[in-house]
């Protein structure tokens, strides 16, 4: 115990000293799993985190997107992990993987065009999709002293990584603080709780040389693979410094990749997002705003205490597709080890050849703060394979010439339909219904009942469309 750690410790101290000039000026930023250690005036608030979780039995692969925007030398992350990870259990992935998964599962807007009320049916179905508000950043860096043991350290990709264990939170906090990090007040008790539960800490910062070698202007997602009966996502550290800033809400997207079925939280409610509604045409131009407002309104409706299901689907297909399903290669990179292509067959786990992809994807979205989500998110995989998607529908009225009797009925029915759409939208988003009606009018969705075609118009077959 005394010697080996001491030697390692010294090594860390030296490494830290050389970086100190940079670090001392540094703030840091934490995402969902970690905490911001930014300078007081740094407003690098993490807006949204994206995490991919592969889970099968106890096997887990976490991929954490990294949208950190600040100076690279300020980046630092602390993630509680259940076990000490070996170097081979840590990897750096491509942003494109998460972006693709995000696009594939994103809430979608579809549009239909009404057929000519006087003619045979025409059908058109177009899909637009929108990556839900996303973003995120991550976090910090370290060194060593009081009761803190550096269990391992690696450089993986552009990251210098250490796995720490600590005896008590005070030591860990002091250890972090002496390295120039500002630890939020709330963090110490949270760290203490994790330490008592035997949690290790995964700490990473950017290795500037290695980062330069990548030639990339951004940081890539970190991945960890491990086995643990705990199927959780630690969010408590990320909330530690959020209390003094408004209600401290943070956005998190979890993409779960499983074999059996949908994933849900066990210690909070998982609620399906309202879906399938017909909404006014102008939503096409502001789908992002619509989605955000709807999400906020629904969150409020649940008193801020729900996790929302946005997508649950067999990875083999989609309908309508916001993006192609992920390829087997992409899925393997995200941790879906049972797909063909290599390594991990056999041993204790039998692999079914299985139809298609044999992967079920769940997209969860939560807006949380310390008050509404005091505990880490705990998940379970269910056997539910029913498909679910966030899907919103635009229905374009027929605008061509039409003057049969059915056309009058059709036009007369439109104002009611528009009113329904307005009410639906107001309900979903808490927007003012009058403002919605105004915008609909601007888009040609008028609420005035059209005058019926005079009876004599059709007498001599000289009809005109008076409603253009």
């Amino acid at each position, binding site marked *: 115990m005394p010697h080996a750690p001491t030697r390692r410790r010294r090594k860390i101290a030296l490494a830290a000293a050389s970086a100190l000039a940079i670090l001392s000026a540094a703030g840091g930023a934490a995402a969902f799993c970690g905490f911001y250690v930014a300078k007081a005036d740094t407003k690098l608030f993490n807006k949204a985190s994206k995490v991919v979780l592969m889970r*099968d*039995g106890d096997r887990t692969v976490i991929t954490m997107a990294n949208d950190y925007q600040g100076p690279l030398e300020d980046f630092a992350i602390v993630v509680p992990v259940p076990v000490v990870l070996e170097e081979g259990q840590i990897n750096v992935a491509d942003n494109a993987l998460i972006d693709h998964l995000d696009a594939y599962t994103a809430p979608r807007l579809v549009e239909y065009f009404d057929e000519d009320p006087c003619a045979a049916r025409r059908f058109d179905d177009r899909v637009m999709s929108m990556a839900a508000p996303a973003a995120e950043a991550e976090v910090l860096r370290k060194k060593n002293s009081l009761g803190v043991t550096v269990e391992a350290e690696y450089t993986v990709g552009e990251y210098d990584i250490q796995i720490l264990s600590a005896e008590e939170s005070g030591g860990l906090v002091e250890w972090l603080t002496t390295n120039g990090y500002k630890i939020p007040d709330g963090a110490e*008790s949270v760290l*203490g*709780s994790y330490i*008592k*539960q035997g949690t290790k800490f995964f700490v990473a910062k950017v290795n500037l040389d290695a980062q330069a070698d990548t030639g990339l202007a951004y940081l890539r997602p970190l991945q960890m693979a491990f086995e643990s*009966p*705990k*199927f*959780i996502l630690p969010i408590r550290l990320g909330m530690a410094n959020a209390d003094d800033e408004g209600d401290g809400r943070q956005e998190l997207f979890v993409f779960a990749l499983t*074999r*059996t*079925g949908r994933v*849900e*939280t*066990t*210690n*909070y*409610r*998982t*609620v*399906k997002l309202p879906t399938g509604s017909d909404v006014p045409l102008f939503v096409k131009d502001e789908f992002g705003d619509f989605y955000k407002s709807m999400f906020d309104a629904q969150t409020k409706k*649940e*008193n801020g*205490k729900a996790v929302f299901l946005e997508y649950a689907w067999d990875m083999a297909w989609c309908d309508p597709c916001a993006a192609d399903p992920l390829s087997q290669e992409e899925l393997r990179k995200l941790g879906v080890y*049972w797909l063909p292509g290599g390594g991990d067959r056999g041993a204790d*786990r*039998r692999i*079914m050849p*299985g139809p298609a992809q*044999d992967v079920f994807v769940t997209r969860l979205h939560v807006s949380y703060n310390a*008050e509404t989500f*005091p*505990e880490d998110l*705990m998940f*379970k*995989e*269910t*056997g*539910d*394979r*029913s498909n679910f998607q966030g899907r919103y529908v635009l229905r374009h009225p027929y605008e061509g010439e039409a003057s049969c009797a059915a056309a009058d009925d059709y036009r007369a029915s439109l104002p009611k339909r528009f009113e329904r759409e307005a009410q639906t939208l107001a309900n979903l988003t808490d927007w003012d219904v009058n403002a919605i009606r105004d915008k609909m009018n601007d888009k040609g969705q008028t609420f005035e009942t059209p005058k019926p075609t005079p009876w004599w118009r059709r007498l001599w077959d000289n009809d005109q469309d008076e409603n253009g």
Partner: protein
Amino acid sequence: MAPLSHIRRHFSDRFGDHLSDICYRLPADPRFFQIAVLSGLLAYGGASGAFEIDPYVIAAVFGAAIATQFLGAVLNATRFEVRSAAITSLSLLLLLRADAPIIMAGAAAIAIGSKFLIRLYDKHVFNPANAGIVALLIISNVAEPGSSLSGVAWTTPGQWGTALWLAALLAGLGVFVTSRAARLDAPLAFFAVFAALAIARALWLGDPLAIPVNRLQNGALVLFAFFMLSDPKTTPDGSRARIVFAGLIAVLSHWLIFHQFVSDGMFYALFAACALRPIFDAVATAPRYAWPQQRRRALSRDGPPTAYPAE
């Protein structure tokens, strides 16, 4: 007219005292309250979106439970009893989820079947609904991934909102108070121990109390305590033994949930405790519980009853 009266007479012959019990002694049997309350919770849960209710699943569960009960009654030459089968069905519908009605029917058949097949000292060993749930969960988890039985059934411990939790809690207490049923000690002992352990853990970890409070505001836990653990037929007959029994289940549940990360650990805990229950009854002997209707029948037909409830 004639056929109708014929049918009525036929039923009267077969189920005579059963019907008269229902008609005349409705408030006396706590099971009526339980059925009403569980049905209400099911309807409320479905309406509030806490879970989805498929009419086919409801039909399958009731059909299988009643059919199994009937078969068991015929084979064992005992009276056909529909009330307990209804309570078991409702418990399954509230606590277990499956896509296929056939799977839920299987759970119901296992639940009721266990009453007739697994007996010791002329008493069934396992709580029926609990046996059905645990059997299905084990099958789901043990089945090879990707096979048709893998993940066929699951529980949804987190899907009860606070409102539903409160409703279940009030309803659970209400059933006991209105029916003056004797065995409130078991659920209360379970809750007390489970809550104490959760709070002690939070204090030890330095966690905010919001964490154990969040864990305790769990509708599934309340249902489990008031409508499953409380079953007088599968709890020890002695009051002290019952409290120890419930406490043991709470400790085991805590260990499974907080240390083994089995979110529905209480079901396994009850299952294990029921397997040990004959020991409790052997150590702490007490008169066996009989439903009020059985007591009356014993009184009216056979002279003095051979068994009274513990209190």
